[in-house]
């Protein structure tokens, strides 16, 4: 554990405040960790993935003895020290050649992990095409029915989306949309079904491959308001196979998925749960309608006078009962006349 630091001057105080939890979070910082034996392919792949993630990326290019699935304590330490919440660890062993492990953290503790094997990798330099500007927000494309149904691919989509596009932004320059990261899952084997725990989908070796491609976007006028899109491959090109994984602890996941309370503005925009009888008028004031039950005017206390007092012979309840009946009858009669 890191010691808790008490800021001694305004600058360090600001720096610490920037690290405090926020309601709307900044983009996640990713640390690319080189393992003890990474190998050329994995090192290049990490370098180019980092190029896509910049400027929110840190490279740990020295050899690091980390095994995320066995002991993630170093990752947790780095997460706290660097204010980072995503790790990409590259490690190549005889048993698991060209391995990339993606680790996501919550409050500097490991949330979930997924290991890939890099089956093939083509560098950005191999494509003699225009590249995107570093730091621009990518558009993302996921193609497979498994992204909605299979836990491994749901996690994969969540991880990749969180890594490259997880920041919530209010607005975007249309001219700044330069590149696309496309993730496609290969076809299922003939005996496989898409349902969870379906035939053959539990064995990691039979899971279909994942193709990650990066394209630059070119817009061509189409005569309509929406231009036609043309894509040119930019690189890197990665073919990944899924290996080990670690699901998130349910309680930790629940804590990580907590949303802040909706603000008044958002409710006005109609976001969140729709509330009955609440509307926003033209002045921007929120107005609510409250329904009050029918009032019993018979029990209304008016001015007390001697003449209106109930006499001893009649009981109070009788008098009131009579009045109530009359009131209830009133509107009915009117309606009948109409």
């Amino acid at each position: 554990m890191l010691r808790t630091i008490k800021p001694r001057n305004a600058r360090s105080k600001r720096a610490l405040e920037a690290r405090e939890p926020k309601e709307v979070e900044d983009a996640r910082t990713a640390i690319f960790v080189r393992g003890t034996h990474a190998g050329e392919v994995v090192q290049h792949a990490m370098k180019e993935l980092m190029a896509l993630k910049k400027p929110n990326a840190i490279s740990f290019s020295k050899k690091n003895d980390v095994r995320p699935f066995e002991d993630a304590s170093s990752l947790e330490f780095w997460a706290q020290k660097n204010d980072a919440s995503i790790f990409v660890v590259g490690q190549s062993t005889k048993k698991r050649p060209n391995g990339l492990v993606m680790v996501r953290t919550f409050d500097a503790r490991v949330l979930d992990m997924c290991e890939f094997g890099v089956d093939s990798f083509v560098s950005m330099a191999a494509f003699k095409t225009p590249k995107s500007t570093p730091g621009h927000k990518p558009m993302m494309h996921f193609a497979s029915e498994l992204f909605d149904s299979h836990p491994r691919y749901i996690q994969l989509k969540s991880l990749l989306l969180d890594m490259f596009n997880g920041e919530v932004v209010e607005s975007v320059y249309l001219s700044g949309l330069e590149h696309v990261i496309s993730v496609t899952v290969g076809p299922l084997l003939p005996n496989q079904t898409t349902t969870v725990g379906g035939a053959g989908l539990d064995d990691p070796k039979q899971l279909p491959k994942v193709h990650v491609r990066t394209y630059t976007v070119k817009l061509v006028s189409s005569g309509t308001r929406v231009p036609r899109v043309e894509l040119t491959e930019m690189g890197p090109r990665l073919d990944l196979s899924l290996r080990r994984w670690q699901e998130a602890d349910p309680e930790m996941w629940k804590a990580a998925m907590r949303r802040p309370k909706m603000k008044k503005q958002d409710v006005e925009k109609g976001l969140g749960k729709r509330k009955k009888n609440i509307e926003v008028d033209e002045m921007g004031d929120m107005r609510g309608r409250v329904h009050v039950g029918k009032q019993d005017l018979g029990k209304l206390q008016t001015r007390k006078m001697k003449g209106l007092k109930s006499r001893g012979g009649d009981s109070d309840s009788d008098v009131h009962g009579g009045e109530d009946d009359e009131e209830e009858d009133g509107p009915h009669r009117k309606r009948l006349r109409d």
Partner: protein
Amino acid sequence: MDVSDLLASHSANLPSTTVDKDTPLDVDIGFLTVTDPNPIDQESYTANLEEYLQSTARDGIQALLAALYALPIHPSQDGPLAQLPLPTTPLPRAKHLPVSKQPTKWERFAAAKGIQKVRRERKIWDEEKQAWVARWGRDGKNKEKEGQWIHQVKANAAVDDDPSQQAKTARKARVAKNERQRLQNLALAEEAQATREARTQRHADIDRTLASTRISTGSMGKFDKQLEGDKKMRGVKRKFDPAEASVEQEKQTSLALLSKLEGEAKRTRKDKGDDVLNVRKAIRTVSKGKGGVALGRETAQAGKSKGKRGKR
């Protein structure tokens, strides 16, 4: 002149922007993400992988752009700016939600009275010096009176009257008061936090007690009258440890189990005696089940009678 033919021929030349898919694409415009739930076309996938991937990506991005251009777009200096809605895909947070700070006594008062917070500038204008001086701190305006070499004194002032000392004490008192209030606010915030925690704990305790009373009847709650608004009882969901665990973890659990079995403190019967002789059992056998006290009495009586006999 009829230009419809010309227009039709022109539009036929232009590339199309429509995307036809069996299942409509799922666009999350807040994250600029599109998900294509259509199954992979096996034939074109195997025939030409790269071309197939590029064409599906193009279709997806075309759908995404159509959604983007339908958003409110404002012109700006650096080109058109599209206003994005909030994303629909739920993603986990990187850090926990911020805990709201307990407002101080002044903040509560100001909120009740509708007093707006005004930022105090650090420097204020000094009319005499015709310069900006610090409000507090070194050569601060609040210490002006203390350093003054001449003071205006009332005619009936005491002999030992020291205006600069008075100003200093007053300033020190203000600082001390502020510090006291700060500590008070801290203590109040802590207290409020403790109360909140105690309340949640109490709620949990009450729930647990209620649950135990509901199953504490003869029929274990089965034939009891249901109260209106009573929720159905939920049992504890069983959780199992994973079948595969690291060696270290397995060792720890085994050792914990062993430590429960072993040890003098864990024994249920303390009076068992040593390992060779079970004293309790031995006494029972010798006294023929009458117990240790009866056995003692018997042996004592036997000794007495022997002595009497000898005297005769």
